[in-house]
């Protein structure tokens, strides 16, 4: 092996490691819902992903996720909460509320194609 080959191989390995670390392990933003008169509200920014991507709420109390989609990327144009039978279009640059009451457990939400993802963690005590 020549030295450029060794260098490219090592760089390649480093790149693969970084890709897997960055997309699978690093940075998950999380937020706990704010209770507001028996209703838990969380604003979720939709731009290339969900911020926060993990939403912590109290189980058994109505939740309103307010999705603010601040982009025209069609990948995020729909949000799906399969456990609650919700599939909603999110108009660009607007806030679209989605309401449901979760029992204790973890629920996924995602874009229409399931690539952009977030999680709702409903706990007995939050």
């Amino acid at each position, binding site marked *: *092996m020549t030295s450029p*080959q060794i260098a*490219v*191989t090592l760089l*390649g*390995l480093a*790149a*693969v490691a970084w*890709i*897997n670390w*960055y*997309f*699978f392990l*690093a*940075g*998950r933003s999380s937020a706990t819902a704010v209770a507001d008169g*028996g209703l838990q509200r969380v604003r979720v920014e939709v*731009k*290339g*992903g*969900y*911020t926060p*991507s993990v939403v912590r709420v109290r189980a*058994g*109390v*109505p939740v309103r996720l307010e999705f603010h989609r601040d*982009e*025209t*990327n*069609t*990948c995020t*144009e729909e949000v*799906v*909460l*399969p456990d*609650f*039978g*919700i*599939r*909603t*279009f999110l*108009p*660009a640059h*607007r806030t*679209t509320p989605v*309401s*449901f*009451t979760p029992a204790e457990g973890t629920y996924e939400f*995602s874009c*229409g*194609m*399931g*690539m*952009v*993802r977030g999680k709702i963690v409903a706990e007995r005590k939050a």
Partner: protein
Amino acid sequence: MTNTADSLTADTESCTIPVTGMTCAACSGRVQRTLEQTAGVATANVNLMTGAATVAYDPEVTSPARLVDTIRSTGYGAELPVAEESSEELLDAQDAARAGEIRELWRKFLVSAVAGVLMMVFGMTGDRGATDAMRYLQLAVTLPVVGWAGRHFYTRAWAALRHHGADMNTLIAVGTGAAFLFSAGVTLFDDWFAAHGVEPHVYYEAVVWIIGLVLLGNLLEARAKAQTSGAIRRLIGLRATTARVVRGTGEEEIPLAALRAGDEVLVRPGETIPADGVVLDGASNVDESMLTGEPTPVTKRPGDPVIGATLNRTGAFRFRVERVGRDTVLSRIIRLVQQAQGTKAPVQRLADRISSVFVPVVLSIAVVTFVVWFDLGPAPAYLQALVSAVTVLIIACPCAMGLAVPTAVMVSTGRGAELGVLIKGGEALERSQEIDTVVFDKTGTITEGHPAVQAVEVAPGAERAIGLDETRLLALAAAVERLSEHPLAEAIAAEAARRGAPAPRAGGFENRTGRGVVGMVEGLRVAVGNAALLRELGLDPAPMAARAGEQASRGYTPIYVAVDDHLAGLIAVADPVKPTSRAAVEALRRQGIEPVMLTGDDRRTAETVAREVGVPRVVAEVPPDRKLEEIRALQAEGRVVAMVGDGLNDAPALAQADVGIAMGTGTDVAMESGAITLMRGDPLGVVTAIDLARRTMRIIRQNLFWAFVYNVVGIPIAAGVLYPAFGLRLTPAMAAAAMAVSSVSVVSNSLRLRRFTPKGQP
């Protein structure tokens, strides 16, 4: 629900509030009691199954918002009902966004296509990128494509990257970005590259074609996706905009939103019926096909129910509005279909799992491809490595995977709704394809469910012993039966009324489930039921057993009547078989599905009906509370059981079945109780539902197979696995074309379900 509507007076309003968190009857009872004790509430009806409170209230004392607070004070969740317009508004917004997107993609594609053609012309001059001037010219043509037409790929990829996310844009951005930056570097700093032994090779043409083809793919995909929600849009579009309300002596045209339950509305030929209600006078034929799939217009006379959004054909009539807004059949259908489209089929889990790791994995594969070509490939290795890595990035198509299941579920549930078949969602679809046994709850599914008295016979000796004649026998039986909810009771009461028999009052009513009813009428103990009831009362049915047998063999249901300690007589009631029952049973058997008939009727009656429609297996004399066990028994045989019933009396059995199919007619449908709801009482609907489910699942499997195999085969070929053996490689532009075709083909395949037509119907 109808109680609420009936008790509405001029100054009360009604609303339905979704209540969450209720798990048992005690929960719904508590909410209902609390509501009933609230000031301003006339009636409250909390339904555990639908999770909704229907409240009639005085708008001057309370409001829906306060009622929501009241419900929340009980510890359960409630939300103000979302205005119907909101889903419509969202659909409009989606339409507008989609139209804008299509226009923009079209413009961007045109610019890219013009640039692509220019590149081809440059290529034909023979010195593609060979001279300095040509490289600059190509760079100039590529800049608007990268900087404008394809700009969103880069900005969106960047936005996703910042959130540790990666999608289709990431792949296109990295692929075209690498090729473009390398080419631009070679163009601008050719001396430096030459000094380091790098040939001045550029890939502008590939960049332009990739962006152009991906844009074309996105354009076609957007157009196809717009069609997947067509059915729900058509349903929403069915709604009338105004209603002609009868006020005093005149009539007044008011907007639909102002229409209230209790209003009397005039409908002329050719007009859309604005809300659900009951015909008061006039007669007409109404086209209900858009909601129930029933192809022939339905005759409406006074007393008949009409469904909002259906089309009045021939005559004019006046009807009383019973349900408006969210509570109408149309709104419930729309809600149900939207919810169904929000669910996920279990089969999607695998696709989801792949989608969620797809892009980072492809990025990794691209890096490995680069390294392997760089280390082992032929010279110039760095160019081969770059092209192969870019091809991998471009051919990978996560969209096909992500679209495979949801588009099929969308189109299928929408098409089902147009045919009067409401499917609850992906899971219901998936389980329906496996059905091998369909259990019909005979009354109301195979038969009309409107029994009529066929014969009345007084027992020998009874006439003398207790002074009975046919009319008196009917009157006594009717008095007791009126208190029961048995469908045969109505037939006896109707016949008694028809013969002008006086209707005495009954007391001490006792319902002996599965056997009959007992009550006191004018000091006499009257028992109406089957032979088992007689034996239970210590009476011998033998004197009339032969007659009963005869009637049963004709398909009638013989009902014994006993008065005090005497066998008094026999009333034969028959429920006519529906005209399409036989065809439905035959169609099921052709598909390898075994039909089973379940009924509380006696064995001989049941067998006669079964023979008439061709059902080979009959489970007769099953009391309502044992239907569930019969379903369990069939499941224990390893069968996947669908249960067809009215969804009201057999809700537990429907819930126990693998697929519960609730069959109703028009306004009277228990839509929420089954996995599948048939909007009309035609047993052929069962065949349609199973057929649609099977076809949908076939489409889904094709989509998933295609999306999966495409990537599993395409990515390695793009990486160059066939190169060492066959010298075969793909160019980045070929990869872009394949990728564009891939996602469009998945959506187009799903759209084939729009043309689904039920067997045996035009």
